[in-house]
């Protein structure tokens, strides 16, 4: 068993998938680690992978003139980082900065897409998991937009 497969079989993100499906997905992944302060990717860079965070904290930041780098959201163990590899123009929208030492599984974007194209059943399983996480992410951002803690006068 590869190291990646070991990590994936019991991971909640893949709960419900067959051992064979997980094995196929694991082949597209490698374990990566980053030190606090490092940059995983930068806005505008080529998006060709996504990362399932196993440990650590990563901040999605956007540099705005006059405001410096603003943290939009932080991601932690269990979160999936990176969507831009799915669709053209395959460019990152934010900077991903490592806040504390981070370990993750990096899935190769083109390889993962290839897996899904070849096996649509597996592709659908993956897409269900991606969309769930995306919906949660979007809902969080919506609540953030409501600014519920502001003082109304």
């Amino acid at each position: 068993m590869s190291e990646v497969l070991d990590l994936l079989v019991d991971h909640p993100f893949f709960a419900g998938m067959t051992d064979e499906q997980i094995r196929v997905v694991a082949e597209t992944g490698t374990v990566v680690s980053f030190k606090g302060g490092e940059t995983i990717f930068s806005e505008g860079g080529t998006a060709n992978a996504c990362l399932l965070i196993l440990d650590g904290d990563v901040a999605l930041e956007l540099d705005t003139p006059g405001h410096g780098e603003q943290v939009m959201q932080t991601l932690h163990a269990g979160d999936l980082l990176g969507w831009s590899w799915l669709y053209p123009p395959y460019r990152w929208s934010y900077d991903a900065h490592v806040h504390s030492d981070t370990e993750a599984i990096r899935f190769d974007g083109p390889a993962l897409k290839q897996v899904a194209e070849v096996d649509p059943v597996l592709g659908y399983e993956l897409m269900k998991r991606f969309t769930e996480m995306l919906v949660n992410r979007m809902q969080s951002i919506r609540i953030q937009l409501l600014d519920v803690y502001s003082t109304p006068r």
Partner: protein
Amino acid sequence: MSTQLLAEPIARPMHPVPCRVRSVVRELEDTFTLELDPPGGDWGFAPGQFTMLYAFGVGEVPISISGDPNDPSRLVQTIRAVGPVTDALTSVSPGDVVGVRGPFGSAWPTEVAEGHDLLIITGGIGLAPLRPAILHVLANRDRYSNVTLMYGARSPGELLFTDELQEWRSRFDFEVLITVDHGDRVWRGPVGVVTTLIGRASFDPQTAVAFICGPEIMMRFTIQGLQGKGVTSDRLYTSMERNMKCGIGLCGHCQIGPFFVCREGPVFSCAEMTDVCWTKEM
């Protein structure tokens, strides 16, 4: 009606008791914690209860008690200035006198959580009414399994009780997770809404109990998030906010469905808060 009941003492539930201000601590730009001499010397309250605080001539508002339930010698209340009465109440100095009625309302059911994991999930000023519950739980820590505080604020500068949060964080038996909606240049902690912390807490969804207090939208999403994890409604508790004028179940303002929030609430189990209660504009 006959006259035989005339001899009964006449109740005065709308009379505030003058209480002296001992200290005023500015927590945030618009939020202050008042420590008062309790009405009539020592007094007791249960975590989650509130008082009606009166600024002489200006008016009266419901304010949750944020002090230690094990210390009957002081009445501690944390107030955010959002209108004329709270402006007046937060402009007091030590030695001034404010009026107090109460305590009123229901309490966080700390005993229900005994033997189980306890999740305390709060946003903004919502930490104040949960602070007494936290202090009670920490004072009786051995009665609970995992205890986790999930606290969301607008920004790092708007976190309440920061010294105490530090102290709590340093404990090994209390998981304190803090997130802010908007970070700043120095904030290195999580950025995102408080619901994103749920996935990071360790608890058994089958038995865990959650106390939730914050803006109503935040509570609704938190309830959804916990239900999604398998926590049932009867183990979810919220503290509701409604307009209150009397605190004694008479003025009618605070009704949600069948409940007077001042009397049956403010703490409700989500099992009693039926769909009728959550209906829009109810």
